[in-house]
């Protein structure tokens, strides 16, 4: 048995089967896809490497390398927690699609993207991970337009920015392999560092490369937007951490942490400032997610294990918030309906559960006390420090986080106020099925429960950091 093949080839086969089976039994297809993702996650943790796997009393030899066209895909034991993280995250996103999906390609695309993200973890040398990341962009962009969201502008921009980002990463990669250790002449590193910054900046919508973000948030189905902002962004952050972990000169350089600090602060300020002036709810949450990503970067700017673990916890909570946002916003804004501030009047009365879930997910993205993102926000706020002199607090990033929280509350209040006004004609409709309402109510409960008891989730998520042994020594 070949371990990488299980994670790279079988998702493709399942995706193919799901595409054929979906029109007849959509819910059952989604349910089976969720089970399959969970199965993949647990297989990643259970599969023995270098020893036979005993299945029903029969020993099965397991190989951890798959060779393909002259390159190898290697399953290293340290990536197990990351695979679990991605597979369980994908399972949650697949399960969420049960509440919103009528799109036949959503399940196959999600499974193929999962396979591509896993390929980016296995490929040796890992510099080529950027190819797989780009292919996942291409696949995900298929979800950004459909008959009810015909404008492809956001997707076109996203693909263009991603091509440029991928090219910069490949260029940087071709230079890095020459200097795997820190060269005597630091001038040689400067261009590589600039290329890496440009590459990841373009891929992660760092201002001024964020112009695809509002277009995607505006023109695309809400659930697809939440997939892009959670799964894709998570994949890019994992590759960024692999770059950091793989090259000693990168993670030993204080200028890298300074870049994270500046990028994070910039994203917080720009994202939350722009969210204040939006008149469409989709765009507003798009910018709030940018601001949230800034906090993830501020966490990564804290050198040592705490920064990486905090970043991964924030990433997981961001994914959860965006998942719930996608589902609830899908209900609040029916197909082809406007999400302009003036057209949302009274929506809280017609869809009270969806409105509550959407509001709480928005507030959670912002890091409001009492909700599940707050403990991680608080940890970053307390720990972020000047990379030049560790231990001394950096005032500007702390102010940026506080500003993003305040601006986020104000911008969400701007939209919530008209939604809570009594409409001229109250039309209270049933919000989806029983399962849908139960899912939203459960998510509302989880916002508070995980906010009060962060220890339920945080230790499990932070275990994924063990995939980066040079950043998080065991």
């Amino acid at each position, binding site marked *: 048995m070949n371990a990488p093949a299980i994670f790279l080839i079988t998702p493709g086969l399942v995706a193919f089967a799901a595409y054929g089976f979906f029109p007849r039994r959509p819910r059952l297809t989604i349910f089976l896809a969720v089970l399959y993702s969970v199965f993949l996650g647990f297989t990643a943790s259970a599969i023995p490497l270098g020893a036979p796997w005993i299945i029903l009393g029969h020993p099965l030899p397991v190989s951890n390398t798959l060779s393909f066209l*002259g390159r190898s895909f290697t399953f290293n034991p340290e990536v197990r927690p990351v695979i679990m993280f991605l597979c369980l995250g994908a399972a949650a996103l697949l399960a969420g699609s049960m509440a919103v999906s009528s799109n036949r390609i959503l399940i196959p695309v999600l499974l193929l993207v999962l396979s591509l993200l896993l390929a980016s973890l296995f490929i040796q040398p890992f510099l080529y991970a950027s190819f797989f990341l780009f292919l996942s962009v291409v696949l995900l962009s298929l979800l950004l337009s459909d008959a009810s969201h015909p404008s492809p502008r956001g997707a076109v921009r996203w693909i*263009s920015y991603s091509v440029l980002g991928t090219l910069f990463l490949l260029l940087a990669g071709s*230079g890095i392999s020459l200097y795997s250790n820190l060269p005597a002449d630091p001038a040689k590193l400067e261009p590589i560092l600039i290329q890496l910054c440009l590459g990841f900046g373009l891929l992660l919508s760092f201002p001024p490369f964020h112009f695809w973000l509002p277009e995607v948030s505006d023109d695309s189905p809400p659930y697809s937007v939440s997939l892009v902002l959670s799964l894709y962004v998570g994949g890019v952050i994992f590759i960024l951490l692999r770059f950091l972990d793989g090259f000693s000169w990168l993670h030993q350089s204080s200028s890298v942490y300074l870049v994270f600090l500046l990028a994070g602060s910039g994203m917080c300020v720009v994202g939350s400032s722009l969210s204040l002036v939006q008149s469409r709810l989709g765009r507003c949450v798009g910018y709030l997610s940018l601001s949230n990503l800034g906090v993830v970067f501020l966490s990564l700017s804290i050198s040592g294990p705490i920064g990486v673990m905090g970043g991964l916890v924030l990433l997981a909570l961001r994914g959860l918030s965006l998942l719930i946002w996608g589902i609830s916003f899908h209900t609040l804004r029916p197909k082809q309906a406007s999400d302009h501030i003036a057209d949302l009047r009274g929506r809280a009365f017609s869809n009270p559960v969806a409105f509550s879930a959407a509001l709480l997910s928005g507030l959670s993205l912002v890091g409001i006390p009492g909700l599940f993102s707050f403990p991680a926000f608080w940890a970053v706020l307390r720990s972020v420090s000047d990379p030049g002199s560790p231990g001394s607090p950096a005032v500007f990033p702390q102010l940026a986080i506080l500003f993003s929280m305040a601006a986020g509350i104000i911008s969400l209040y701007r939209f919530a106020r008209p939604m809570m006004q009594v409409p001229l004609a109250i039309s209270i409709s049933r919000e989806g099925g029983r399962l849908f309402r139960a899912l939203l109510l459960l998510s509302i409960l989880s916002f508070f429960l995980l906010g009060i008891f962060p220890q339920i989730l945080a230790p499990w998520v932070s275990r994924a950091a063990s995939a980066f042994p040079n950043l998080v020594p065991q």
Partner: protein
Amino acid sequence: MVWIILAGYLLILIGSLIFTVTRSWIYALTAFSIQTLGVGLLALQIAPIPVATAKCIVGWLAVTILAITISREKKDFLRDPEGLIAPLFRMALWILVFSSLVVLFPGLGGFFQNPPAGILLPSGFLLGIGLVNLGISEHPLRVSLSLLSLLQGFELSYLWVEQSLLVLALLAVMDLSILVVLSILHSYNIPVENSGIAL
């Protein structure tokens, strides 16, 4: 070999000029095919014949996919009328890219591990012209051709750095996937009466 390189240069210059200036799809696709042939000829300097041929085939495949997509729109395939100023402006941009490249050329080598000048010059030119074309149109199909121009420039220089089969295959997949996906996204935006097929 010198003649092949010169022919490659000439084809790239002619192809990119027509592609940048014209808005007619049939001329743009023909120009892109010519440009692709030029890239294939220039790739022969550093890559074996099968690799250069593969680059040409990928480019021509892309043109075929685009031609099929456009022909399914019940729209005038030949003409997309506009005044004289716009083509002149685009020609000025083409000249600007070419002249900028001549000035900046000596400093570009460091980006790609110093490939030979015969590769670096056309590569930089295609990158520049791809970026310019990306900036002057938001039409998904034109964007896809601009991105392919940009990628052709990159791939030409990247051949100098890396020639493993997997990377070549992934670059080809990248090219074609961009085109296919942008064609599909474009199809959602076509008014039903203009669409020849049900998508």
